[in-house]
């Protein structure tokens, strides 16, 4: 009995367990523990470890980029019995999540002080969520997928409800928790169905490890019509659609984006959505690829609905956080277009296009949310377009950052967003998804309207009088913002412009 069990373990991990493969995630966890301990023993009035955390995340992100290019392109390695697979792409995704964690803690430093809530626990939660996201980039197994996804989600529930004295933040938190919990349960039910079908020895190609993506793919290929397989696949996709906020799982977006503290909104909109897409790409081009005949029409329909809903809902929106959330749904639609193309063509370059789009989306979104958190007053959730009137005159620096980033989101030529959208449309055309591309083009045209409306308000609408500024939620000029925040926002905008001109490093 003992030797048999030992034999099983040995077959699971032939080279032993290599903890060093997830050293970055462990380091994040240990740092989070350190921040927590330091906060517990901090004397009132003394400073916490917030600055160090921010620097730590930035350095780690750069380190991961360096590591990524040390790995030869196309090479990949498996760890933990195939649960984790690492390649240059996963290493770059790790850097992506670390970078968005860095930006979130930086914005958090600006905003939390205004709201009068402590920052140490915020940083701890961001660190833990980032560790979960980094694992999600590398998972090739449904157990780890669920655990890492929930690590991220549970940290996120607390982060959304972080401003304890604000009813809107708490309300957003409980709304996010119930709906995200529902989607996790659906995902789990789907995993259970796939596990049940794939472990059944009466079916051809039954798996020894029914959770592993590789074995499941073979099994699903042999049993494409099985009801359990189809139901499981559908439920798993439902769970992932929630994370990327695709129609019909987008109901939570408006309220949660509005109520969450601005840095958390940015983190939800960028990192959490990116994680959803990484998982979706890995699942539909991995274990579920044999079901392409059923899934491609489904995903295309979802993409069309998502693009239409996001753009039309964002049209009349006055609250800027809701506007970002609803237009973010439309961006998820464009990204789904790339996923569909990747599935239809069964090649890698549309996936690279999707990841590139996510990166440009990160740059533009964080710049805009950065401007938002500088401008926000007492009530974080009540910023409207009117608060941006005359921004260009009052602070041309913030106005410029806003203009560049909005241009990038709208897809205006010199910015990175244009090139990224172009790649996705080329992918859709190459895959003969003409209807999808047509709806996408319509969506882009609509989106130009509301993004430019925002820009118009910032540039042409005259500045409010001093009295109105006093009455409104906006702080009077000059707008205070830290040196480092300004530097980082400038860098983001610069990268946005540079990537618009040069993207030769992409292996498209």
């Amino acid at each position, binding site marked *: 009995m003992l030797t048999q069990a030992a034999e099983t373990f040995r077959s699971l991990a032939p080279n032993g367990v290599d903890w060093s493969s997830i050293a970055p995630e462990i380091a994040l966890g240990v740092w989070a523990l350190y921040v927590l301990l330091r906060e517990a023993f901090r004397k009132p009035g003394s400073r916490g470890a917030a600055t160090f955390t921010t620097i730590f995340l930035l350095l780690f992100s750069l380190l991961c980029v360096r590591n990524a290019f040390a790995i030869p392109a196309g090479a990949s390695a498996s760890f933990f019995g195939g649960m984790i697979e690492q390649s240059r792409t996963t290493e770059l995704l790790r850097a992506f999540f670390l970078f968005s964690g860095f930006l979130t803690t930086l914005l958090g430093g600006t905003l939390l002080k205004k709201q009068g809530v402590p920052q140490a626990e915020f940083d701890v939660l961001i660190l833990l969520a980032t560790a979960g996201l980094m694992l999600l980039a590398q998972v090739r197994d449904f157990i780890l997928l669920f655990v890492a996804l929930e690590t991220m989600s549970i940290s996120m529930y607390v982060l959304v409800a972080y401003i304890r004295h604000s*009813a809107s933040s*708490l*309300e957003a938190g*409980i709304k996010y*928790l*119930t709906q995200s919990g529902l989607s996790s*349960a659906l995902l789990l039910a789907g995993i259970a169905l796939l*596990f049940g079908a794939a472990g059944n020895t009466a079916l051809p190609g039954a798996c020894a490890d029914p959770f592993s993506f590789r074995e499941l793919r073979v099994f699903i290929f042999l049993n494409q019509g099985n009801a359990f397989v189809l139901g499981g696949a559908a439920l798993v996709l439902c769970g992932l659609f929630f994370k990327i906020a695709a129609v019909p799982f987008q109901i939570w977006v*408006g309220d949660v984006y509005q109520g969450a503290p601005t840095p958390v909104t940015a983190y939800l909109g960028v990192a959490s959505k990116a994680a959803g897409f990484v998982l979706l790409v890995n699942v539909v081009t991995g274990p579920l690829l044999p079901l392409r005949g059923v899934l491609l029409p489904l995903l295309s329909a979802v993409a069309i609905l998502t693009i239409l809903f996001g753009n039309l809902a964002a049209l009349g929106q006055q609250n800027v956080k809701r506007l970002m959330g609803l237009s973010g749904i439309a961006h998820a639609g464009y990204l789904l277009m790339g996923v569909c193309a990747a599935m239809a063509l069964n090649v890698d370059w549309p996936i690279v296009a999707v990841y590139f789009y996510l990166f440009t989306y990160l740059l533009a979104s964080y710049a805009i949310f950065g401007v938002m958190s500088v401008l926000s007053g007492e009530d974080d959730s009540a910023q409207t377009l009117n608060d941006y009137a005359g921004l260009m005159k009052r602070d041309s620096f913030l106005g410029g950052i806003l203009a560049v980033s909005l241009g990038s989101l709208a897809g205006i030529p010199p910015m990175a967003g244009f090139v990224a959208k172009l790649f996705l449309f080329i992918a859709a055309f190459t895959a003969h998804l003409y209807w999808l591309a047509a709806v996408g083009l319509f969506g882009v045209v609509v989106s130009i309207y509301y993004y430019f409306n925002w820009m118009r308000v910032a540039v042409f609408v005259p500045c409010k009088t001093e009295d109105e500024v006093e009455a409104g939620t906006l702080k009077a000029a000059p707008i205070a913002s830290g040196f480092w925040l300004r530097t980082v926002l400038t860098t983001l905008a610069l990268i946005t412009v540079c990537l618009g001109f040069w993207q030769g490093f992409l292996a498209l």
Partner: protein
Amino acid sequence: MHAIALNHYLIVAALLFATGFAGVLVRRNLIIVLMCLELMLNAANIALVAFARFNATPEHPLMDGNAFVFFVITVAAAEVAVGLAIVVALYRRRSTVMTDDLTALKK
């Protein structure tokens, strides 16, 4: 008398899951919504354990199905702890635990 087979467990799991799902969508009391979420996760747990038991062979013991359940239990506990904490904080501010009264975030 018939032996209790995989299907019986799956039917129980499906019923529990449906109850939870309907509860989350229909009920207005947040505490009950949280309970329904737990119900759904535990329904999936029953299915996992039943599958792991009935599909196991001496060559493929399928222990990872059982191991997964431990993780799900932990996740469920963490989720409900956070949920209750938010509900308590919300109750202190708004003196309500009904979803109909959550109206701070209307357009």
